[in-house]
């Protein structure tokens, strides 16, 4: 399987795969190590949600206003295009130095137009 990947020119994505492996490994190690080396105190109120020192009155699982979702969608706009930046990462050193950088900024500019549109539509005024 490894050799076909090489011929199919997917060799570059091998590094991305290592990158993800290291990321996942690091977080797992941190969580496991933390619970091993530190003493754990299980006080009565340890599990409860922290609400500035007082027992919370009701759970937070209630109907939310629609405005909260709009803010989340705005975040998504930039979050998705990070995915498209990966191919730029791989083909970076082949062309001359500036071509990819300029293309990158044009791409980001087009994405941020979505934010400007949302702003004009009045998403940020809280209703």
């Amino acid at each position, binding site marked *: 399987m490894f050799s076909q990947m090489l011929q199919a020119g997917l060799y570059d994505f091998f590094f991305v795969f290592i990158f993800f492996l290291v990321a996942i490994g690091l977080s797992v190690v941190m969580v496991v190590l933390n619970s091993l080396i530190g*003493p754990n*105190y299980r*006080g009565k109120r340890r599990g*409860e949600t922290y609400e500035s020192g007082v027992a919370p009155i009701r759970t937070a699982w209630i109907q939310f206003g629609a405005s909260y979702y709009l803010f989340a969608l705005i975040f998504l706009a930039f979050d998705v295009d990070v995915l498209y930046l990966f191919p730029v990462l791989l083909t970076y050193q082949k062309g001359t130095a500036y071509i990819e950088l300029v293309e990158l900024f044009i791409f980001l500019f087009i994405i941020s137009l979505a934010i400007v549109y949302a702003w004009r539509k009045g998403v940020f005024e809280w209703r």
Partner: protein
Amino acid sequence: MEIKKSPYCEPTIGMDGAPAVLGFAPVQDLLNLARVNSLWPITFGIACCAIEMMAAGMARFDLDRFGTIFRASPRQSDVMVVAGTISKKLVPTIKTLYEQMPGPKWVMAMGNCAISGGPFAYDGQYAIVNGTDKIIPVDIYIPGCPPRPEAFIQGLLKLQTLISKGTIDANRRAEKAAGRAKK
């Protein structure tokens, strides 16, 4: 003077907690170097001592030199500095905050009110609790009303030595006391 166990090997009194799985002394002593230089107190200022704690955090006395950053939530803090008078209405809050702090954790009672009720402790007092150690176990007591920022920093350094060389100092003091008792 009984030999005081180092805090992270024994669960603090009144807390059902387990000591560290990797609780051997060399591992913990190594980790203590990290814990000592990043003691994050919870911003829990109650009364006048809170202003002196703020003064200690500001540019002139600058707590950042010791890696001390004031965190707002107990989830991210190691030290609870009880700075001010503990009234009876505040006791459940202090207990909740203390229990919601992850281990290893320490408590600094700052100011006479937190140590023993201070200027408000007299036998007709109905409103306050005379001292933090009646509610939660306390490691460092900082006298003063309010203690000067330098006194707060000295308390912090004393806590740091307690953590890093806690057992060694305690044992040495115990042997000296035993030696004097024999003479």
